[in-house]
Structures are given as structure tokens and as C-alpha cells.
């Protein structure tokens, strides 16, 4: 198992277990305001003198929660609707395409802001808002794939054998659409973490004093010149996780592709 998968697993564990750990993300140490790690130990302290390590771990829980939920909801919705549209064609597809066009006409983050503002602040509403925006990309990708898979002769052969429609969709179309959607989903994790940061900055996501990676970066930018570690710590964490998720996605795709397995004699 490659390093990337290890990092992703670590991220997941941290995200799940952080609330159970004895952390004090909101403890204020007035004597350590903006203290860098090499002076104060740990990962340093922020502008209110709160420990960055504790905040980072608690933020991991938020980021993981938002990213995992949003990506799975939007990828699943997009995969299903897109495959169905591409495979069925006709009226369903026409409606789907218009719907996708309408969603794409808005800048995604603006729509999410509007939604989150309407729904009120809170993590679950952030997930909802980002999913409503996020499924469109997956649906468009899945639809394009399904359009080409539909023309393959094994689909025609299965129809000729008298195979039922749902079986056709789930055995012949969706498995072949899945791979690119899965790869796209790994990229989705990165953009969702960043989008959550944006919403949190506007006060629509996690509410202070709770922490998320995004809110930590946003807050840290104000002290970028005097205390760069405020941005570097969550920034590096974000960078590592996004990179690892992408690499792990590649690894997963290769594992899933039966064609790349060693041929037997």
C-alpha cells in the first residue's frame, strides 16, 4: 500500500477520532499569542494564544466531515443522474442537460453562499449547499461517459439477449462510467475543503470559536508577515491531504481496472 493511502487513512482516523481526544482548541494562553512552534512548542499558537495543534486536529474533523459527505452525496447523485440521462436519452436527458446548464450558469460558490445564507449557518447546511452545487460536474462527466458506453456493442448484445433495463444500467453502463467519476471525486475532495474554507470565512460554515482548516487559513492570512506558521500549518495539512487523496485515487483506479492485472498464462 503506497504512502498516499496511508496519509488518507491517517486523515480519516484523525477526522473521526479528534472529538474523542482530550484537546483544548479554545484554551487561551495570553502569554503565547502568535508564538511560533520553535518558541512555544507544539505547532505554535494563534493570534488569541490558542494551540494550533489542537485546533488543527479539531479542524480535521470538520474538514473530513464536510469533504467526505459532500463528495459522496454529489458523486453518487451525479453518477446516477448522469448515467441515466446518457443511457436513456430522450426527454429525461433533455431535462437533465437543461438543469445542468442552469446550475453551471451560476458561479458555483455564489450559489452555495446564497443557499447557505438562506438555510442559515452550520456545518450540515454547508454540506447541503456544496452538494447542490457539486453534483453537476459529476453528472456532466457521467453523462458524457454513458453516451459513449451506450454505443458499445456489449450493451447492444445484452439488449439482444433480452436483458432488463435496470440490469443493463447497473451491469453494463455504470461500471464503465465509474472509473472517471472516481478520479474526479478525488479532485472534488480538494475543492470541497477549499470551498468550505470560503463559506466559513463568510461566517456561513463553522462558527467561531470552532475550527476548520479553511477558517484557520483565512484567519491566519492577517498575520502572514509576522506569524507565517498560522497559515503554513493548516496549509501544509491541506496540501498533503489533497495530494494524497489524488494519488490514492489513481492507485484505486488501477486496482479496480481488471485490464491492468497480470494476465494469466
Amino acid at each position: 500500500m503506497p504512502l498516499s493511502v496511508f496519509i488518507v487513512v491517517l486523515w480519516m482516523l484523525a477526522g473521526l477520532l479528534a472529538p474523542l481526544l482530550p484537546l483544548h482548541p479554545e484554551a487561551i494562553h495570553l502569554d503565547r499569542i502568535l508564538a511560533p512552534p520553535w518558541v512555544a512548542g507544539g505547532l505554535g499558537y494563534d493570534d488569541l494564544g490558542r494551540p494550533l495543534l489542537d485546533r488543527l486536529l479539531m479542524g480535521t474533523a470538520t474538514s473530513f466531515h464536510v469533504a467526505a459527505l459532500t463528495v459522496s452525496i454529489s458523486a453518487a447523485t451525479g453518477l446516477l443522474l448522469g448515467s441515466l440521462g446518457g443511457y436513456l436519452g430522450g426527454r429525461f436527458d433533455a431535462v437533465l442537460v437543461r438543469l445542468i446548464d442552469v446550475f453551471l450558469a451560476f458561479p458555483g460558490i455564489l450559489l452555495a453562499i446564497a443557499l447557505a445564507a438562506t438555510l442559515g449557518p452550520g456545518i450540515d447546511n454547508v454540506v447541503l449547499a456544496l452538494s447542490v452545487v457539486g453534483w453537476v460536474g459529476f453528472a456532466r462527466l457521467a453523462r458524457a461517459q454513458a453516451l459513449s458506453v451506450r454505443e458499445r456493442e456489449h450493451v447492444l448484445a445484452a439488449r439482444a439477449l433480452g436483458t432488463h433495463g435496470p440490469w443493463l444500467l447497473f451491469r453494463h453502463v455504470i461500471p464503465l462510467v465509474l472509473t472517471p467519476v472516481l478520479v474526479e471525486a478525488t479532485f472534488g475532495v480538494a475543492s470541497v475543503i477549499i470551498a468550505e474554507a470560503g463559506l466559513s470565512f463568510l461566517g456561513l460554515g463553522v462558527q467561531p470559536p470552532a475550527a476548520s482548516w479553511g477558517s484557520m487559513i483565512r484567519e491566519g492570512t492577517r498575520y502572514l508577515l509576522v506569524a507565517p506558521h498560522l497559515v503554513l500549518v493548516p496549509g501544509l495539512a491541506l496540501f498533503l491531504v489533497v495530494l494524497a487523496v489524488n494519488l490514492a485515487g489513481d492507485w484505486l483506479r488501477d486496482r479496480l481496472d481488471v485490464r491492468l492485472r497480470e494476465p494469466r498464462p
Partner: protein
Amino acid sequence: MNEPLLEVQDLQVRIGRGPRAVRAVDGVSFVLHRGETFALLGESGCGKSMTALSIMRLLPRPAGRIVGGSVRLDGQDLLDLPERDMRQVRGGRIAMIFQEPMTSLNPVLTVGQQIAEVLALHKGLRGRAAESRVRELLDAVGIPDSARRMKEYPHQLSGGMKQRVMIAMALAGEPELLIADEPTTALDVTIQAQVLELLQSLQARYHMALLLITHDLGVVAGMADRLAVMYAGQLVEQATRADFFREPLHPYGRKLFEALPEMDKRGRPLTVIPGTVPPLDRPFTGCPFAPRCDYRMARCEAEPPPLHRIDGREVRCHLYGGEVHVPPAPERTAPDRPRARRRSDARSPETPLLEVRGLKVHFPIRRGLLRRTVGHVHAVDGVDLRIGQGQTLALVGESGCGKTTAGKAILQLLRPTAGSVRFDGTELTRLRGEALRRRRREFQIIFQDPYSSMNPRMMIRDIVEEGMRAQGIGRTARERHARARDLLLRVGLREEHLDRYPHEFSGGQRQRICIARALAVEPRLIVCDEPTSALDVSVQAQILNLLSELQRDFGLAYLFITHNLSVVGYLADRVAVMYLGRLVEEGPVAGVLEAPLHPYTEALISAVPRIDPEQRREIIRLEGDLPSPTRPPSGCHFHPRCPKAQPICARSYPEQRELRPGHWVKCHVAG
């Protein structure tokens, strides 16, 4: 004899690195003189294209490398030339044309610009001078109205036209050597005949040497002066055309002849070459063909055969070692088992299994914002067919004539616009939903491309069982497994293949799996849509044998859709010829192939390259291409291309006339 133009000596090409590198070309030597045509004949993967690419030094990088030997053009070793000078040779002294004219031209440049590019590079011609030369070249390759055509883009030209443009591009540098890599494989027979004739006349006119790479014995017979047979990266035989076609020396060459489906081999199985081409990633201890050879001796496995020279021919086979002796006459490996004749050929059956009347499939052409229908493509435009129980009807025609569409419409995979399809008394066009789905087990389809016709993510077991599950055949999973195993054995595969994925199989094996999948639901009719045209000759023979055995054992009826007339002669009982959406002639196979009534059928048959080089028959040249099915010509669709057209042909579509018993034609002139 004059100095050879091209001299290839002991060429060695490896693909990949390390000890497992594939020996794609393994010690190939031959010479080629000016004005001569030399053919490299071989099946896919034998290294013939790699040889051609190495001469141009265009091997796929970084995997392909030339590791030994020399390629001399007029005494100059091309392998030593710096890349700069090599660029002058490519397109200048040596030009190449490829198999796929569709992908070999740049879609965003006009044809004229692409030819002018070669002229600018190699002849320094620009502006007006270049333009007039482009027109000369287009005229030379027989493109009418060259002034207009040179301003067109590749998509506006037909396949045959594109191949002509490719030839014009190749000629632009006035090459001394022209390499043609399967130049006509992607083209229809009538177009193939045009292009081959063009190549021959151009070669004579410019005194070029032609290196022809092909898998088609017929093309070799019509074109080559000398030829070499390639197997597993080696030349196994080199001879003049006359010598080779009189009697091939190497057992592999003999097998290739015997595996060809022909009319006179009807009723008995074709010879097949057992086994497969050996893996090329290790050096051979003996003769690479030994495991598949009928004349195998102990020596063949122990030491690689040297090249023996006999009467100016070269052959790499131990049979010819020691004193030169005449090898034993080829004996047939497959016994002459006469196939039980199931029926009389000529009569159409009393109660047909399938009866198609007035079948039409029209595709609407939609344009504009509101997607209004502005016209129709008349893909199938009134087709009548009858197939009896256990019979084979061949549906023959060039690409784009609507034969595949007709096949799909008969199976209701595509709903016909009009007409009736009666299968065993049931009108299929009226069946809907569940009723149609239930009936589907009785009629199946096998496709041309064995790669896309299986789901790459399903195991063979699931692929074969899919139909059983859909049709509720076999009550338990165990019953279905047993049946899948039996079917796999029946089509010549092994039980352990059940748990593998499609990518682990060769093209021929995949086609067997597709046949097993179709058989699983116990059909009575199978539509075979070009089932062998993606396969090599030796594999094609295996599949054709299997199909005719299955027909005998299960009483299957076949609708055999193909463009390959020699397969038709071997397998079919009756033949229907299709042109632009309509049948123009139908009759018993012997009648249609030996005494065709319609001028189009005549032209099709005459255009098939013959492997009998002595018998040079007159090729009836068809001018132009298949017209568009959107706006078919007035009167008889064929009259603009017909050599026998009369004034009446342009006015009215001919009625169907039965000129011989069971053999009818739609033509004003025939008979």
C-alpha cells in the same frame, strides 16, 4: 542486374527493454530494385509494419529500437544518418501511405495545403508553382475537378478519395521508394480495385519501387513481383510471385492457402492452423512455427532452421536442409468430412423461419434551433428477405449500403420505420416490452468487433450466463454454471477460462465467447454481422468452421452480413446483394457468384482480388463512390456508376424480375 535500391540486412528490432523485450523483427533481410513491387505478407503481429517503420526510422519511441542490421538506400545506410538528413529522406526519397486514410490526414487543413506542405519541404515549391503542382498531382491520382477538391477538407472526401490524396501526398516528394502499409484494407472491394490499379499505373509511370505490406493473398497475387512471407518476426520464405503461387515451400505459406474460404471448399471444414503465434519475448530454440506445423521433425524444435536457397527462392525450414528434395505434397490435416447437405440449395423454403417484407429504416436529419426534420437518411429502403430453418442467407454490400442497419432492424434492436418482420409466424414489429423481451432468446446477434462486444468488467462466466439469467434458463446457479461450462467447451475453449476477463483473450477466442453467449439462449436464428472481418485468415477459418458445425448440430439459421465474397461462397446457401438501402439481386449462392445478373454484383465479384495469378480477369471498374442515401439518384440507384446504363435507368426504378428459378434481379438491362 542493376544495383538494388533498398537493401535491408539482418534487421533486428526490439520493443521494450531488458530480457523480456519483444523481438518484433528478428533478422530480416531483403532487397528491392527500382520499378519493382515487393510484398511483405503476414498476419497481424508478425512484424511487417515494424519492418516498414524501421526503414523510415519511425518506430514508436521510446519503446521501439533498432538493435542491429542495416538499411541501405542506394548504398547509404539510413541507420547511420543524423536525424536532420533522415528528415530529407522521409517524404523525399521514401514515402509511405498508411492503412487508415481517415486518421492519416489533418482534419483542419485543406487537402491542397497538406500536399503543398510536402512540396515546400522537399521541392522548395511555393505559391503559384506549388498550386499548379498540387493540381497535377491530384489529376495524376484520378481525383476529378482538382481545382475545387484541393480547397476541400478531408471530411468532405470519401474514404477512397482520401486514400488517393494520401497517395498524391506521397508522390509529391517524387520518392524512389513508396511503402504502402495495408493501403486498401480499410476500403471496400470496388474502391480497393481502383486504388490498387492506381498504385500500379503510378509505379510504372514514375519507375518507383513499391514495398507493399499486406495480409491479403489476393492483393499480393495482383500486385507483387516478388514477395516474402513473414512469421513471428522472421522472413520464412522469399520467392517470385509465380513461384510462390504455384507452390509455396514453407508449411506456413501452404496453410495460409488452405485456410482461405472459397466456393470449391464448400461442405467441408477449412484447414486451420492449430495453436497461436508464439510469444516473441524470448529467443527461439527452434523453428518458431514448429509447434503448429504438420511436418514437424525432432530437429525443428532443437535448432532454428537456416535460410535455404532453392532455385532462386529462399525458405527457412528444415525440410529443405541437406540434399534438396521435393517435399511431400501437402496433405490435408482436417479430414474431408463431407458436411451433410441439409437441403437443396436453390429452392427457397416453403415456410420460412424469418420473413421480412418492405423493411424500411429512415433516420431523420434534424437541423437548426428547433431541431426540425429537414430530410431523411434512407438507410434501409424496402428490403424483402426470407430465411428458412437451418439456412444461411448472406447479405452482401459495401460499407454504408445499410446492411448492418437492416440486421439490427430485423432483430428489433432498432425499430423499423415501416415494413413487416415475421419470425416463425409472429410479427415482431408489433411486439412490445415484455413480450418482445421473451422472444429475444430465439434470435441472436454476433458482432464484428470482438473487443467492444464484451463488457471488460465482467468475467467470462457472467458474460455467457447473462442471457440465461435474462431468459430464466437454468433454475439454479449450479445449473447455469454447468451449462456455461458446456458451452465454452463446445466453442473450443477450456473450463478454466470461465473465471477470466475478456482482455485476457485473443480476437479469435473472444469471438468464440461471443458465439457461446449467443448460443446460451438456444436461438434459432443468428445474425452474424461481419463476424470474421476483424480476424486473421487462419483464425477466420476456425470461426467459419465453428459456425458451420454449430449450424449442422443445432439447425441454426444465419443471416450472414458481410462484404467478403469468398466467405459468402464458402458458407451461404443464398445471397442477397444490397445497394444503397435496397436489394438489387437475390439468388442461390452458385448462381449469384458464378453468373451474376446485376451489373453491380458483376462489378463486386470482379473486383475481389484473386489468388490465382495466372487467371487475370477483367476488373469491371466502377466509377465514383456510393452516393448519399439522403438523396439517392433518380431511377435505378446504381445508374450513375453502371457501365451498362441505358436512358431508361435514370427515369424509373426497375421492377423485380425472376430471371432464373429462385434468382431475381432489379435491373432494366439484365437478362
